[in-house]
């Protein structure tokens, strides 16, 4: 973990509720896709934990959804504003287990950490499929960005306005090929989606969880969960847990 001051380079609206922020600063402590940063906002006591979407040199990209007053206020931040950020938090995805054809399954604001995972997997020569789920067409973002990386992208919308109608798990069933069409999965999204993915996937995989956090670096025990190997902190041993660790 490092505490660093970052400078906002971009704060751009992607959809009605989703924004992308690019920040420049010391990113040296960010080691893997799936890790998160914890951002201090003036006037709010607790920091805002947000997953790392992309990393290019000293530029950190995050994507955030407006969920409360803090994130609402973030949409008003101007380029040049300085933010106090804790970086390098949590355990990210272990990409060494992906096999040759991993599938990335993201739902809504759970999609961003999969972008950096996709980038690294493709750089490693893997054939990557991204199944991206949204509620409706006006919430869609980053489909082209995943395609530009070289991923095969399957979109699912709950209202059927774009792509497959239904959940990411409905789209997942479309995957064809030898075996089940993928060698391993990486996922992030709301917990009911994670549970559904856990139940339908035919391979092993890793799931990234969300929880209300106090500190974000492992001392307050605010975000604990039970696993087959004892109690884990979502912020420290997580947010990524392996399928085999879960008690579902």
């Amino acid at each position: 973990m490092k505490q660093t001051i970052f400078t906002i380079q971009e704060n751009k609206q992607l959809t009605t509720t989703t924004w992308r922020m690019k920040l420049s600063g010391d990113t040296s402590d960010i080691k893997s896709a799936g890790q998160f940063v914890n951002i201090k906002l003036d006037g709010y006591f607790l920091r805002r934990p947000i997953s790392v979407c992309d990393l290019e040199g000293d530029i950190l990209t995050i994507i955030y959804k407006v969920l409360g007053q803090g994130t609402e206020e973030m949409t008003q931040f101007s380029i040049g504003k300085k933010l106090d950020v804790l970086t390098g938090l949590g355990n990210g995805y272990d990409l060494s287990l992906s096999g040759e054809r991993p599938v990335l399954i993201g739902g809504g604001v759970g999609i961003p950490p999969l972008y950096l995972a996709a980038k690294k997997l493709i750089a490693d020569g893997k054939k990557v499929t991204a199944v991206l789920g949204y509620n409706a067409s006006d919430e869609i973002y980053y489909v082209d960005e995943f395609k530009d990386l070289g991923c095969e992208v399957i979109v699912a919308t709950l209202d059927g306005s774009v792509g497959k109608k239904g959940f990411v798990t409905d789209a997942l069933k479309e995957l064809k090929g030898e075996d089940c069409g993928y060698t391993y999965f990486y996922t992030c999204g709301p917990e009911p989606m994670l549970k559904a993915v856990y139940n339908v996937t035919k391979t092993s995989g890793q799931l990234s969880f969300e929880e209300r956090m106090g500190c974000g670096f492992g001392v307050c025990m605010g975000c604990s969960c039970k696993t087959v190997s004892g109690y884990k902190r979502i912020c420290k041993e997580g947010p990524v847990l392996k399928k085999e660790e879960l008690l579902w």
Partner: protein
Amino acid sequence: MADTKVRLCGIEIDNPIIPASGTFGYGYEMAEYYDINCLGTFSFKGTTKDPRFGNETPRIAECPAGMLNSVGLQNPGVDKVVSEELPKLATVFDKKVMANVSGFSIDEYVHVCERLDKVDQVGWLEVNISCPNVHGGGMSFGTNPRQASSVVTEVKKVTTKPVIIKLTPNVTDITSIALACEEAGADGISLINTLLGMRIDIKTGKPVLANIMGGLSGPAIFPVALRMVYQVAKAVNVPVIGMGGVSSAEDVIEMMMAGATAVGVGAVNLVNPFASRDIVNNLPLVMEKYGIENLNSIIGMSQEGIQYG
């Protein structure tokens, strides 16, 4: 050179800064980020007889200038604390640590204190009496002078280490509890634990915390804590550790002027992991600014010449 040393129940500490229980793990977690030997000491995570997972999540809710927690005393149990956590701490911390003890019955307090009494690393036992008494209708030990007093009496029988009783502020008259503890033999009093509160998510109409209610901490509670430290320090003769929303070296000075001999630093550690170190570093500078050469000279100075009604 400003002198920051104070004596806490017979043990001299380099400075009065004590990260509060529950905000500092078992210390070694924080030692990843800085050398924790700069602290006076710290109070480790509340420890019970058996391992506890604690309450369901969400356990955390944000508040204006503070937070609620309903962690529910998650800890690995005293045996593992002694066999695993404290040896890990010993590799990064050379000083005596304050052991925070919780229990849901007098027997449990006695068991945990007896176990920790044998550990050389432990300098003080800080006994948290805010927990509900499972044999006493679920009321917290700390809300009743008689029950508080019996915890002290029984614990004192099994340890020679100083026993500091940590009081809950969720009572009508905190000084009566403090006096009962002192009379039963407590070597010190620490206060305040968190104030009971709740939040509701207006999108769903449901409480934010799975446990419905939780303890409020952070700068929001500082004036309440300061007032109670003032009242208790005036009433008792044993040392008082003041805590509740302390976030700066100035807050430390204020707590000591109210009557605290040492000062706990809690919630701010969670939002600024370096907060306790920074307070230790700033303390001599703030002392110099206000012309304070020795911290002992300011303990309780706000009490002097004031008739408190």
